[in-house]
């Protein structure tokens, strides 16, 4: 994931990056083109250009073109607010494999999170892109307002010939820290995760749902959430700094772009800056990405510490864990199942240690809205 600029023409309530103004020290186009070479030279094959709103970076398509020329598959995430025929032409000329737009519900809910009128504009962006032959995917951040719309949203996106849909949970970081009441309640995972799994189960060649890495883990829905073509169709741990890398527009490198950094007053996940060192040096540094590469179970806290899957799962999404204080992950399906004693959602009973963890803490299982 490569954040070309933090500049954005929206101020979304759930923006984890707190995007808006560009960073003071963003990489120049020449620097980006150099980094593009380093990135592909490092072995990276799939690159997503992101922001902010990446089209506000003047040379976004030139960066994309360079990456494509070097052999990478490149796509772009946009909010679609100003997306036009010119952008489509630039994307196609650059050889991008597609564009992903953000839709966070139907018009009322989407506009509530983003801006009035933004839903109409992003749907227009989808339609003109599809009409021009540019493959379109959609990202949706699930929150309290739109969580009941997933099935109907799926049909809507299929009707608009979107080919892929990535789902992720809103997390109370960044701007969403000011809107915690809009984060889906953790106990709602008891029905949300099975519903997402159901959406994945009915995938078809024309339309596929991709749960992001903060959705899971384990329990009956797990196989459906993962790619069945893999040898290990279940969650096998956060990939930040292992198979995934994030580059901020100022050149800072993190294991995952979602991980907090200077905008959050946080520096521990920044592994280096491409202005000071090559990407290769940063990636190959012996103690780089230690939070994940050198992960130890002792890092886990809360329920994760006693969870039977702790060595495989490693606490789930690092960002989600960070957002909850850094030691445990309540936005885990298995956690909620054990907590609420919904053992019907599991293939086997929890361990004694897991059950004991919630002794005196268990709450009644919430009903589905």
């Amino acid at each position, binding site marked *: 994931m490569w954040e070309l600029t933090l500049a954005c023409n929206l101020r979304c309530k759930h923006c984890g990056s707190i995007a808006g103004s560009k960073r003071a020290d963003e990489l120049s186009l020449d620097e980006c083109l150099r980094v593009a070479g380093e990135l592909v030279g490092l072995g990276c094959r799939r690159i997503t250009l992101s922001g902010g709103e990446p089209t506000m970076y003047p040379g976004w398509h030139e960066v994309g073109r360079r990456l494509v020329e070097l052999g990478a598959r490149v796509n772009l995430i946009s909010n679609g607010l100003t997306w036009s025929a010119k952008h489509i032409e630039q994307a196609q000329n650059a050889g991008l494999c597609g564009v992903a737009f953000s839709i966070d519900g139907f018009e009322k809910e989407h506009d509530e999170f983003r801006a009035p009128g933004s839903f109409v504009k992003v749907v227009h962006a989808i339609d003109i892109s599809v009409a021009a032959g540019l493959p379109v995917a959609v990202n949706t951040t699930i929150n309290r307002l739109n969580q009941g719309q997933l099935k109907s949203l799926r049909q809507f996106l299929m009707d608009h010939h979107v080919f892929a849909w990535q789902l992720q949970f809103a997390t109370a970081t960044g701007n969403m820290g000011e809107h915690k009441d809009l984060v889906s309640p953790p106990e709602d995972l008891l029905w949300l995760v099975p519903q997402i799994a159901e959406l994945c189960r009915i995938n078809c060649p024309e339309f596929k749902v991709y749960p992001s890495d903060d959705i899971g883990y384990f329990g009956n829905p797990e196989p459906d959430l993962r790619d069945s*073509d*893999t040898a*290990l169709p279940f969650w*096998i741990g956060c990939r930040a700094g292992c*198979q995934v890398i994030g580059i901020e527009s100022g050149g800072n490198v993190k294991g995952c772009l979602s991980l907090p950094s200077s905008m959050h007053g946080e520096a521990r996940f920044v592994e280096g800056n491409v202005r000071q060192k090559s990407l*290769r040096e940063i990636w190959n540094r*012996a103690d780089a990405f230690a939070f*994940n590469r050198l992960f130890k179970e002792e890092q886990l806290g809360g329920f994760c510490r006693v969870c039977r899957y702790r060595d495989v799962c490693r606490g789930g999404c690092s960002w989600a864990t960070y957002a909850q204080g850094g030691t445990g992950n309540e936005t885990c399906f298995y956690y909620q199942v054990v907590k609420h004693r919904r053992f019907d959602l599991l293939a086997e009973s929890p361990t004694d240690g897991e059950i004991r963890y919630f002794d005196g803490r268990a709450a009644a299982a919430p009903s589905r809205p």
Partner: protein
Amino acid sequence: MREQDIRDRIHKFLRDTVRQVVVPASMGVGLALLGGCPDSSLDAPPDGSAQTSTNTSTSTGTGGGAVAIYSAPMGGTLATGAGTGGQVATGGVTGTGGVVETGGVIETGGVIGTGGVTGTGGMVLRYMAPMPDAGAFNTATGTSTETRTLYMAPMPDAGLVSKDGPTKTDAGKKDGGAVALYSAPIFKDAGPGLKYMAVMPDAELAVPSTGGATGSGGATGPIPLYMAAMPPD
């Protein structure tokens, strides 16, 4: 899916398909860096298929047959005795047919490592080398003509360490020792998680000036491997 099913799959995966051997040293299985990851990963294909080496070099030195590799322990307690669980590599190193046995998972005793390569940049900890004592590899001529067992040593000490730096300990999971395997790049251009192990092409047979692995075409000693860039999808 039951926990045991998950662990069985992991075990089978490690036995059958591990080719990319750079894994976090201290995690139970180190799967996040292996080929079983989703195809949205930075590079690894979902089924590990692209990790098959396209290097058709007949391995080491003067060539001739597949050469077994092992991952030299980086210190600590060395296993003794010949490995017994290794499967046979029939195609290039970590190439088709080449299966890396996971010493930490399987019961092999392993082979004593002959010294990891010492890097110059504080990066190198391990190297993949032809197994020195399995007989088929002629260290005098650098020739190998037989298929050899691949063996990945269990990691006695976990964690990437810097040259001269402390070796991190690993709590391990069950047997008091780490089970994760790992192999660090031997050259500065190697990228964990992005590379696969391949025989070093002749053009790049410059080896670290210190440490165990030497050898270039016909030279003495085990032939170092390096972490090559993944072939395109």
